[in-house]
């Protein structure tokens, strides 16, 4: 990475109180995002992807950051004053969400909601903000923005709503845009349009993207680097080409194998990963993936550290441990 990172998350731990005692939704997650870069975070539901992103913005709700640090342009955000975080949100780090329908306030026009993003940060006269809202809506490809600016969210389609969300995100030209599964609720053709839009935004504004998804296809299309999360931990990270081309971790491998391709035989069951992500209150001891792992062996009873397996690349698996590394990675590749 040539430029200093924009966002550095180090050993992040996020804790939620529950009636049965506190649980850690995210433990020891570290990653960084450089200016203009796209970093994808993948994993199944419940792996802690969204929680990590919300922790960056200080939007955890009931949860809290129990340890680690989040630095934005070198400034520590964990424990920062609420008003400082508020000023960063929207202005320097914006976020768009999974479900655009419920993420827009139903009682206000989309123009209001875009203009609000501006007016909460800069002293902007109402008319200027409205004009800028029209401009932003045009930029995100909403048809007929002069008229649409007066539409209410329920009058727009899902794709259009997500474009509005992106317009809100871009209002103050943030350096980092966090996208939390922005296309999951949309159909495939609309998904492609939204991804195109995000790519264009990134090219035109040099915005860095932290892209949360569970779709490996989206990762390969959009991201420079990828972070694979499982049960609140990073299990593998590296460049997209390397991680997708030759996954080091059995979990990454299994995720990639569960993507159907036209060549996938129809008469055999899909290679889905058996079982589901363990709940944070009921975490298996040792490697968190071991109950579902096809390559489980004795050493998995202890939790493996992240092994460096190349430049800027690491994987959390005993198979990379000294002596066994070369053969087992190949062996993992053979699975499926």
């Amino acid at each position, binding site marked *: 990475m040539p430029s200093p990172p924009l966002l550095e998350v180090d050993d992040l731990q996020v804790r939620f109180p529950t009636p049965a005692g506190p649980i850690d939704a995210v433990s020891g997650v570290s990653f960084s995002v450089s200016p203009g870069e796209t970093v994808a975070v993948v994993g199944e539901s419940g792996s802690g992807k969204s929680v990590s992103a919300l922790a960056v913005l200080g*939007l955890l709700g009931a949860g809290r950051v129990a340890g680690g640090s989040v630095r934005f342009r070198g400034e520590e955000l964990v424990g920062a004053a609420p008003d400082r975080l508020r000023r960063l949100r929207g202005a320097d780090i914006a976020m768009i969400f999974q479900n655009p329908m419920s993420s827009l306030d139903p009682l206000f026009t989309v123009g209001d909601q875009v203009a609000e993003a501006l007016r909460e940060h800069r002293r902007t006269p109402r008319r200027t903000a409205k004009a800028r809202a029209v401009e932003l809506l045009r930029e995100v490809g909403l048809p007929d923005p002069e008229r649409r600016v007066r539409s209410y969210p329920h009058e727009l389609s899902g794709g259009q709503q997500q474009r509005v969300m992106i317009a809100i995100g871009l209002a103050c030209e943030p350096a980092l845009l966090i996208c939390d599964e922005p296309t999951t609720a949309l159909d495939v053709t609309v998904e492609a349009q939204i991804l195109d839009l995000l790519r264009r935004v990134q090219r035109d504004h040099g915005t860095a993207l932290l892209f949360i998804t569970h779709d490996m296809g989206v990762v390969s299309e959009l991201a420079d680097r990828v972070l694979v999360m499982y049960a609140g931990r990073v299990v593998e990270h590296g460049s997209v080409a390397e991680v997708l081309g030759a996954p080091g971790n059995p979990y990454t491998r299994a995720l990639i194998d569960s993507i159907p391709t036209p060549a996938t035989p129809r008469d055999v069951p899909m290679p889905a990963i058996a079982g589901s992500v363990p709940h944070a209150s009921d975490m298996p001891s040792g490697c968190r993936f071991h109950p579902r792992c096809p390559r489980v062996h004795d050493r998995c009873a202890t939790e493996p550290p992240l092994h460096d397996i190349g430049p800027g690349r690491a994987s959390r698996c005993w198979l990379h441990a000294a002596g066994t590394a070369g053969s087992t990675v190949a062996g993992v590749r053979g699975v499926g």
Partner: protein
Amino acid sequence: MTLYVLRRLGYGAVVMLLVTVFVFVIMRLVPGDAVSLQLQDTGVSAAEADALRADFGLDAPVWTQLWLWLGDAARGDLGTSFYSGAPVTELFLERVPVTVQLGLLAMVIGALLGVAFGVVAALTRGSLVDGGVRLFAVAFLSVPNFVVALLLLTGLAIWFAWSPPIVYTGPGEDVTGWLQQIAIPVLALGTGGMAAIARMTRSSMLESLGSDYIRTVRAKGARQRTVVLKHALRNSTTAVLTLLGLELATVLGGTVILEQMFAIPGTGQLIYQAVLDRDYPVVVACTIFYAGLFVLTIIVLDLLYALVDPRIRTGKALS
């Protein structure tokens, strides 16, 4: 929109007609009539009483009476009181403003305080303040308004040696006297609504504050004031409006008792006395007033819904 209002007004008229017929008939089924109550222990002969009944038109069958009354009412004549002999319309119109002032003040105060307490409770969820608001809300919901009025009256008299003036003066003549007089009834009438609205505001604010769109507003970096007062509160208003409609019924019922208790010459007192006296024309007129007020309020509330929520405005609901 206009069509919708007209249709609602039409339904309202039907409801009021049914209420009228119902009350008209029920009142005549209640034992004792105006004449026997008026003339009891006066030694008037049965023949004279019958003559008086014929005079009032009470000797005819109920359905004939109803038919005649409806005919008169359609011409704007609601009859005359059996007692004072004054036209019911006149009797009634001079009392309507008193009750409307009382009820409106109670509802407005209840709504404003209720929303304020609800918002504070939602924002301080789980704290002592929240607990206090919830406790008092349950207490005020459970205690009927006339008990609240009695407690206030006794409390103020014992601890501050203060009691409201007894002779009613309108706000036009003596504002301070009027305020002193209606303070307790207004508070007593308002507390029930306040408690219900506080609880409703609290729960719908909490729901709204936990919603996706509030997360978006926060992610924009909006100030807390914008988050709470603009987005969360506005999204809670529909629930509160629904409650206001229901509250009106309680408040109107409450005026009947409280006006009697505090010697406030409003329609509540009028209907109370008229029922005791079997003064049929007055009872029926008051009932129509209460039903009409209720029907109108519900229509106004429906229109307010549409004003607050664009989804109702553009949806089929108002077509």
